[in-house]
């Protein structure tokens, strides 16, 4: 050890320090993943015949493909809603005094401080047939019969967007905070109006935050088992529930494993699209 300590780069540490984490990952992440892959490569539930049958089944079955499609779409919708609502919050945060900043952060973080189950039930109370929204609209005479809000795509997107909002807002706040406020002023003094400044300067420079926020929100939205099932109800099936049914109810472990792998790959594909888009648009943040 330390044969030539003088020439040693001060920033290079022994890889041994990462060993505990590496071991942890190996045991609880890589190993189960490999087991999953191994399982998915069997054509029968007993695990006797090797083959790609499970994958073929999924990829040729319109129902399964439909579930995958609607899950990916759900993620996209939730991400879009979070981005459109979260960006102004983050933007506002950077332009108010310290006291308002504390309040905004509190509001943004609040969803994280309550349990998912509680939050989801709150949405049921709000969206239900006799829920707060319907009751209000009816008492105001705006509608006659209650609107169907619960067990709809709209309801799921709304509830998920609220639940995942911090995952979008926090990276955006960080990214916007890194932008030199003089850039705004510089743009303005060069004759640009607020919209041009926003689209040419603020948005491109906040892209790292947008990408981080979208990736987190997307990944969280499509895997949000509880909210999806409770708000979506029986009529709407998304990948996590589909997976759960196959594994738990039908005990079809190889098919459930194949679903997991396909789901994983689909998510990775979407995430890498986000990242590539970000890199292409030359948004290098505060670099």
């Amino acid at each position, binding site marked *: 050890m330390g044969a030539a300590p003088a020439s040693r780069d001060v920033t290079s540490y022994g890889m041994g320090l990462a060993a505990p984490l590496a071991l942890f990952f190996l045991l609880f992440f890589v190993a189960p993943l490999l087991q999953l892959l191994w399982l998915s490569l069997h054509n029968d539930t007993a695990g006797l015949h090797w083959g790609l049958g499970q994958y073929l089944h999924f990829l040729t079955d319109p129902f399964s493909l439909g579930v995958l499609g609607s899950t990916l779409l759900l993620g996209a919708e939730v991400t879009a809603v979070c981005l459109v609502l979260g960006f102004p919050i983050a933007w506002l945060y950077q332009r108010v005094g310290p006291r308002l900043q504390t309040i905004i952060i509190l509001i943004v973080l609040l969803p994280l401080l309550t349990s998912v189950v509680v939050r989801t039930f709150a949405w049921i109370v709000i969206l239900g047939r006799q829920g707060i929204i319907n009751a209000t609209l009816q008492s105001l005479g705006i509608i006659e019969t209650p609107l169907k809000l619960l067990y709809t795509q709209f309801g799921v997107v709304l509830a998920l967007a609220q639940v995942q909002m911090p995952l979008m807002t926090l990276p955006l706040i960080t990214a916007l905070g890194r932008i*030199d406020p003089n850039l705004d002023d*510089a*743009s*303005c*003094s*060069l004759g640009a*109006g607020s919209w041009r400044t926003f689209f040419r300067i603020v948005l491109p*420079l906040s892209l790292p935050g947008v990408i981080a926020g979208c990736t987190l929100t997307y990944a969280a939205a499509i895997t949000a088992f509880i909210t999806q099932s409770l708000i979506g109800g029986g009529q709407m099936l998304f990948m996590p529930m589909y997976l759960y049914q196959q594994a738990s109810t039908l005990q079809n472990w190889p098919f459930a494993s194949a679903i997991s792998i396909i789901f994983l790959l689909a998510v990775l594909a979407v995430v890498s699209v986000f990242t590539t888009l970000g890199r292409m648009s030359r948004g290098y943040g505060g670099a």
Partner: protein
Amino acid sequence: MADAPSGRSLVVDAVTHRYPSGALAVENINLDIKGGEIIALLGPSGCGKTTLLRIIAGFIAQTQGRVIIGDDIVDALPPNKRAVGIVFQNYALFPHLSISENVAYGLAARGVDKAARQREAQRLLELVQLPAMAARLPRQLSGGQQQRVALARALAIKPSILLLDEPFAALDKNLRLDMQIEVKRLQRVSGITTLIVTHDQEEALSMADRVAVLSHGKLEQFGSPSDVYDRPQTLFVNTFVGSTNRMPGVVVSADRTAAKVRLDAGAEIIARPAGGALSEGGRVTVCIRPEHLQFVGDETGFAGVVGMSLPLGATVVHEVTTADGSGVKVSQARIGETRALENGAAVRLAPLAPSLANAFPATL
């Protein structure tokens, strides 16, 4: 707007600004700047220079007063309608845009078509002597180069007023001198009315046609570099611009143009009443610059004892302790063999001329 004539006049009329936090940043500032002039705003940190600049640019709406560019009162105009170019202290180049896109940014905002934009950007980059850098990103340039790009970007919109906030603060000494000459050259060529914020007095005195000295948000003096240096109107200006010896004393007799002052250090000298009329018997502070003191052989001056002598290239600075125990600095040109003054030598000192000793009523 795009072809606003360069070199418009700028009037800052009784401008006062109080930040929402309650800090009074500038107070009743009056500046009357002619078209094509180059003005330095000089003052210590926190005296309100940046605030005044941001008011002129339109980023801050002043609490009171008016800003007039040419014949227009611009107070109601947002920054993007004022045709004021600004170079920020940290340059504020757009990090994700190439150098030529940075320079062309203002033209794009004005709807100039792409080809014309690129041609103009290239022309400006040649003007600031960076024609080969067009495709680079700001972070691939040195500080001095970024500075020049920021200047080119501000000039691209053909501003009628150019504001520079401590433009050379981050540059090393040689580069700073180059850039000062460069800016002065560009300013001469374009004739743009220019306001340079600085806390470097040499920069202010060497670059500007006129210097505005600020202290604690107030305008202390607005005049030519030689006015400010040789005929300071306040004690602050005298001590802030250049170095000076402050010698307390009492007025023996005074009229408009001259005052006889008995210095606490001994000796009576004739001084110029710089800050208005002085009353007999009143205490004053007399300011004499080190280069305006001379050693005298007769009994006219005040006595002192030489302490340290520092040879500083072309001059030698002697530290002399006077009879009242205070120290004064004397700067002597090194002509041929200057007589070396020994530590502890008794000498007598007097100002070169009465007009070079400024008497201000003592505050306290």
